[in-house]
């Protein structure tokens, strides 16, 4: 009974909203869900927006899955943006030395959609 993560299509892009707690069990599911949504979406070329404003805690494990998923989505040709990180989560990750270097970020969903622009 793993909760699945809702993936919506907004303005031609895939929008994944991660809610509540991305528990260790759900985190793998998240990656699979996102990758198979991209797979189903073949033929289109919108970007991928991952909204993490619902995440209160992001440890190195979750951060790694987020970064890996973003990298995989990029390899599959999707412009990928992570948006909505909370101030305390950003401070914690940086203090630990985890800068998520390769990940593109945006303030919120609006800002993220702006970044992704119109699908080509």
């Amino acid at each position: 009974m793993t909760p699945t993560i809702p993936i919506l299509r907004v303005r031609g892009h895939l929008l994944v909203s991660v809610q509540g707690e991305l528990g260790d069990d759900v985190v793998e599911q998240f990656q699979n869900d996102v990758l198979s949504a991209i797979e189903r979406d073949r033929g289109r070329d919108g970007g991928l927006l991952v909204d993490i404003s619902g995440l209160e805690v992001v440890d190195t494990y979750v951060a790694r899955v987020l970064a890996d998923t973003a990298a995989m989505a990029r390899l599959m040709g999707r412009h990928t943006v992570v948006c909505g990180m909370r101030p305390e989560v950003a401070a914690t990750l940086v203090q630990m030395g985890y800068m998520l270097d390769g990940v593109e970020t945006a303030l919120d969903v609006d800002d993220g959609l702006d970044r992704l622009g119109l699908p080509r």
Partner: protein
Amino acid sequence: MTVLVSERLTIAVEGDVPVVRRRARELAQAAHFDAFASAAITTAASELSRNALVHGGGGYAVVEHVSDGLREGLRLVFVDEGPGILDIDRALRGGYSTGRSLGLGLSGSRRLVDEFHVETSLGKGTRVEVVKWARFRR
């Protein structure tokens, strides 16, 4: 130091890590941690309990809401009877991992808390104790 709440939580399976994390978060709230301090101690709880599980083969955590009469805080202890940390100096410096990880969990947790003690002995196990105090009361 007065212990206001003390709980012992088993760390044996993946699902136990979020339980420790959640309890730490609730106690941080009870101890009046602000959002930054709460995220910091909760994240440390997550890192250290996962280390006990993944590297230490499981063990237990003691999560405590403490007070020294003037400040409230959280004390977390993680204990396992695993192989111990091979190179403790490198592990504390960060960027060292025996897995395929960045190796930032242990060193990062240390930077997130006010007090940090590790005892580890090869073949016997590891005990990590951390304390974080709430800031700016009233």
